């Protein structure tokens, strides 16, 4: 469960988030929609502490994460994040991308990590791409690989930075492919 309480974020003089509060229960799906630059990604980045909140509290599983004493590396393992630009590791194959963190952070042995990775790749339909480098993948495939990579750490909560693509002519944003791939 994630609870955000009165979250403020200021970039120098520009206040992006002015007191955001929200609560997401386990298994719940929350979609945040808004014009570009309105702070959607900033909220998610704050929950992963990639941005430090200016004010307000964030709780993950009841634990306050923007606390000096909080073990940020531990908390991040519980919160999976899929970036807007995916940020895949270009020098590693698909399976290498997925297994790196489980092996190095969770000290999982290679075999177990690869079994999990294969299972996740099957789930996102990229089984045949396991030895492909990110550069050989299409945009959608990259996105699915990024999801698999985040889920490999078996997080309690997963985030996606959504893509909003404006349709030609109508000027209206249509939410493109924003599903949660939770277990």
């Amino acid at each position, binding site marked *: 469960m994630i609870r955000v309480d009165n979250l403020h974020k200021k970039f120098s003089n520009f206040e992006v988030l002015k007191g955001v509060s929200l609560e997401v229960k386990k298994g719940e799906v929350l979609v945040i929609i808004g014009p570009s630059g309105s702070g959607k990604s900033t909220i998610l980045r704050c929950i*992963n502490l*990639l941005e430090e909140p200016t004010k307000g509290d964030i709780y993950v599983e009841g634990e306050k994460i923007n606390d000096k004493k909080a073990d940020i*590396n*531990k908390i*991040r*393992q519980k*919160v*999976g*994040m899929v*970036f807007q*630009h995916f*940020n*895949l*590791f*270009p*020098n590693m194959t698909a399976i290498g991308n997925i297994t*790196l*963190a489980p092996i*190095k*952070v*969770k000290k999982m042995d290679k075999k177990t990590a690869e079994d999990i990775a294969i299972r996740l790749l099957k789930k996102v339909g990229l089984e045949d791409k396991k030895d492909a*480098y990110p*550069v*050989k993948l299409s945009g959608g495939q990259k996105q699915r690989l990024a999801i698999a*990579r*985040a889920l490999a*750490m078996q997080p309690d909560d997963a985030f996606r930075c959504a893509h909003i693509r404006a349709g030609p002519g109508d000027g209206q944003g249509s939410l493109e492919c924003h599903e949660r791939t939770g277990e």
Partner: protein
Amino acid sequence: MNLDFSSMPQYTQLFINGLIMTIELTIISVAIGAVLGLIVALMKMSSVKILSFIGSAYVEIIRGTPLLVQILIIYNGLPQFGIKFPGFVVGIIALSMNSAGYVAEIIRSGIQAVDPGQMEASRSLGMSHSMAMRYVIIPQAIKNILPALGNEFVVMLKESSIVSVIGFADLTRQAEIVSSVTYRAFEPLIIIAFIYFIMTLVFSRLLSKFERRLRTGDTR
């Protein structure tokens, strides 16, 4: 105009000795310079203020003063304080200290050229800063660093000729020696210019081949 190379072949051995010295000096200097440069780069990027100040100051001073002056300070200046090294050692010290300044910048820019998103992605997966550096950032930075480091080697191969002013028996110095015994200035200089040119040409070609191989897999 009288161009006469006929007296040159008998000094082949001298040129070869000089060539070996030049290559040796360059390899040793760039190797030491790379290690020293890595240390300086890490200091410069450090969050500890005093370390980053020392790192930056080193780079600025080395890059902001002529190599010739640096060599003369070590060779002529330091003995005034009782610090004296033989010519060969001075050559190595001066060139590797100089190289370190440039290599530090190569390494720093190589690391900083890696997309910041890579660090974020690594951290979001629970890796510590040093883990992310070691497993994700550095391996990608090496791809940026190696070609530039090879380039530094080529530059150093030529720049090293400056140590001839302190009597270091490199390729350029040998040309001067040959010139003083044969009373011919143009021929020995043209010979070494040709040798330098061939060396840098061959090495640059090898380098771009290697670079092309590094790049494969980067594009669709």
